[in-house]
């Protein structure tokens, strides 16, 4: 539960700090990138908060092993 809360607060602060500048400059790319990444982060937090099984990004490294060189 706290995970999602933290995510929302974090995004709120981010929005407050960055949104005005971006809206003024009307840069679509910036805005969409911000929103996409922000939502991605929020989604990850939510996944953790609801205890969905999520593979760790680090596990990707395991594909590369020769099992101890």
């Amino acid at each position, binding site marked *: 539960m706290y995970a999602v809360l933290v995510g929302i607060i974090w995004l709120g602060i981010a929005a407050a700090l960055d949104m005005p500048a971006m809206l003024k400059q009307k840069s679509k*790319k910036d805005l969409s990138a911000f929103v996409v*990444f922000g939502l991605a982060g929020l989604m*990850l*937090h939510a996944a953790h908060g609801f205890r969905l099984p999520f593979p760790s990004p*680090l596990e990707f*490294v395991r594909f590369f092993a020769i099992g101890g060189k």
Partner: protein
Amino acid sequence: MDKLSNGVITTRQFRIIIVFSLIGDTILILPNIIGTEAGDDAWLSMLLAIGAGMLVAWLFASLAKRQAGHSLVGSALIMAGKWAGGFISFVYMYSFFIMILTLLVEISLFMETQMMHDTPPEAIILLFVIVLTASLRYGLESFAKMSELLFPIFLLMFLFLSFCLLPQAQLHELLPIASNGIMPILKGAFPAFGFAFMETAAILMLVPNLQGDAKAMSKAIRNGFLIGSSFLLVVVFMCIMVLGPEMMSAQYYPTFLLARRISIGNFLERVEALLAFLWIVTVFSKAALFAYALMKGIGEMIGLRDDKILAMPLALMLLAGTVINTPNIANYNMLLTYYYPVYDVYVYLSLPFIQFLLLGLPAVRKKLAKSREEREKHEPISEMD
């Protein structure tokens, strides 16, 4: 993309950033790994790794020159076009991302096991990420200046640590030399090579922000590698001579134990918390470097105007990543010792090498030069303000 949004860094700052990121988390975890593999020959492993590392330094310096004022990702995009270049950039970005995750997890595990036992690791990571984000939003230049400021302090404390331990160093711990043959030494050298030297590839993302000519840049890279390696070599020597190879492989963070051993005249004791500052600085520097690289890379891939807006969302994703990611320490150690260095070879060595070769092609060179001219027309390169 406005390169000046991140500021300009001098070659001196560049060198210091390299030194810090080379030491990075190596100094925390490497002595344990290298002690387990090579025992009292760990210093030989380290020397071997440094030898190989200098070759890598040469590779990176040459690659930086060929990038012709573009960052690693930028040159990949120009060289291979949107799709292939985008794929290469994505590989880099993903690697940077998990690198920062690793660093965060490491520092939190370190703080938790050695100093603040009851604090949940998430709190430590949160604090770290807040500082990281602030540093990202302020830009590369402020980070570089801060590193420049911190370096003398770092050097002083490091020298203090080394000198205070000299009385406890026992040369005979270095014997017998190479008693188990060359295999353990190689096994120890490989992680050292990976953590310290190969992972420094992220500095190639900073090339556009560098003030100075190509020659100064190569010199900075070379010197940075040399200085960083000497720090690491001294630490490995100290670990073997003061702690002995058995303790080095038994303890998870031998350098902290080194700091605990300082006892001058029975009154200067228990200074290990002060020296933990050293490791936090280097881990933070490495994390910040990779975070900048990540931010910048994504900015270039998408074609953003101001890449600083990515700071907070990225930080959020980092937080999420670490929270999902914290494994148990045995699993984590095994991952680091055996799997990570191999992954490093692919992403931080082979890929830059391929890029290096491709950037040498005359067609690519023309494209790079043209792109640089165009950019300079829009924003003239100004000197540092």
